[in-house]
């Protein structure tokens, strides 16, 4: 079953192109990476899927269901969760409150919510220790962990995460990526936006490479990692220097 299908998605910010005619799909249970340099349109695509910006044209299907007219908060209730770039945790709320809000959309009862909370806290023991701390006092890596944990509170079918390694030092990146693998191991489909190519391809089964808003390359990770065109998309074409 396909968890996500995008057909010919285009997004514009006023006169500015965000993405153009992007078609891609994600199988249930798969980890798929979206790669590309800064400004290539990766985040824009995630925002279009979660509905916080409107696509100009194209179709987005979530488990076969057309998402077109569904408002963004209802997409979350449907099981599609988006961890945005820069984590966007609620800094004035405690860690516990952030987590509770993660389960806000899923209209479960108080008991189920607290059950879910203990499940998630079991996965993220660090957060359990600091349950009552203000989230704004966490470091970057800790905030990223919180953002993932918060997303997991709603028991999502698909987790979209934008640049989880951004601004983190290498040990923290390892922790975050281990977590992502754990999340995938329990059956969550993951759509990962990442600049750090090697990192992303290590855990993703497949990847799409965006350049200037369009898909220029796609395939399974093992073959992409050695594709010279991939490095072109980041460091430019002129590998031998043309001066």
């Amino acid at each position: 079953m396909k968890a996500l299908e995008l057909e010919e998605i285009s997004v514009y910010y006023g006169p500015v192109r965000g993405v153009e005619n992007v078609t891609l799909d994600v199988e249930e249970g798969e980890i798929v990476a979206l790669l590309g340099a800064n400004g290539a349109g990766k985040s824009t695509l995630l925002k279009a899927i979660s509905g916080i910006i409107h696509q100009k044209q194209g179709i987005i299907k979530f488990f076969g269901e057309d998402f077109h007219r569904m408002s963004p908060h209802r997409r979350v209730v449907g099981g599609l969760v988006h961890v945005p770039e820069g984590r966007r945790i609620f800094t004035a709320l405690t860690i516990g409150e952030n987590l509770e809000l993660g389960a806000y959309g899923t209209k479960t009862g108080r008991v189920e919510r607290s059950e879910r909370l203990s499940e998630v806290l079991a996965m993220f023991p660090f957060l359990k220790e600091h349950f009552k701390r203000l989230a704004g006092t966490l470091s970057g890596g800790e905030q990223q962990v919180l953002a993932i944990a918060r997303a997991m509170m709603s028991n999502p079918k698909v987790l979209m995460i934008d640049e989880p390694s951004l601004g983190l030092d290498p040990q923290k990146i390892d922790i975050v990526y281990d977590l992502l693998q754990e999340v995938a191991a329990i059956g969550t489909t993951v759509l990962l936006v990442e600049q750090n190519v090697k990192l992303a391809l290590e855990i993703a089964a497949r990847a799409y490479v965006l350049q200037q808003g369009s898909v220029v390359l796609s395939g399974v990770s093992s073959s992409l990692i050695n594709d010279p065109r991939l490095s072109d998309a980041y460091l430019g074409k002129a590998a031998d220097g043309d001066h």
Partner: protein
Amino acid sequence: MSLLLNELGNGIFLGAFFGLIALGYSMVYGILRLINFAHGDFFMVAAFVSYTVLGAVMVGHSHTHWFTVVWVGLLVMVLTGGLATLANQLVYRPMRRAAILSMMIAAIGLSQVLENGVLVTPGWGATYLVYPVTTPPSGFYVGSNHFTWGQLIIVVISGLLGLGVYLLVGRTLLGKAMRAVSEDQTAAVLMGINVDLVIAIVFFIGGALAGAAAVMTGVYYGQINYLMGFTVGLEAFTAAVLGGIGNIGGAVIGGLILGIVQSIGTGLFGAEWAIVVAFAALVLMLWFRPTGILGERVARRM
């Protein structure tokens, strides 16, 4: 000393009203960054609605049934909350993308609509109306100062309502959602929070509190007027800014401080200077602590 105690008592009493109305300003500002100039007029309309309803149910009764006053008060709270929510849905929500300046002008327009609406409504109009129910003068002495039971009950009810809002915002899932929306609307949407609904609820709560304050004002002062919302609204907003706008505790504390300052100022200079004292306090406050007593400094980032 005894004079000071008297002013302090009056100040707390006045502050209770300010605080209740300030809460509405503060909550709406916290979530939309909008100074809702119409808020004071929600309070005023509530006073007139309660006047009419109470007048109708009191017909034929020779003395006051306080139980009736309570349920009418609750009814008026719901109606005023509904009015505030309706205003949000019709005016502010379609303007979510407009400049804040335009929103404030719309708020002023709305305030004019409510005031003049009351003015032209048959049976309401421009004159002072005598409220159908008033608190009895009996009370108690603290030292040589006399306070009425009515004053005490009003302070207690205001305190309870304030506490209720404090708990709602601080403890419940809905309250957490409100704080989330006020910090980052997009992130709140990504939690599955229906931001429009949360904003509507905030308007409802603010309106309901103004409704409660209106009934108590009517009962205590015994008369109402279509312009009563303007000054009180102004003072309540000042209170909200004093306490640190957007902050629930701040609204209550700001209300109390303003009430005390004004009541002492009135004692010193006379009632006609009350509003001058209030604004002087505000300007001084903004000089020394621009974010208010409990407001936190917003990090300057681009």
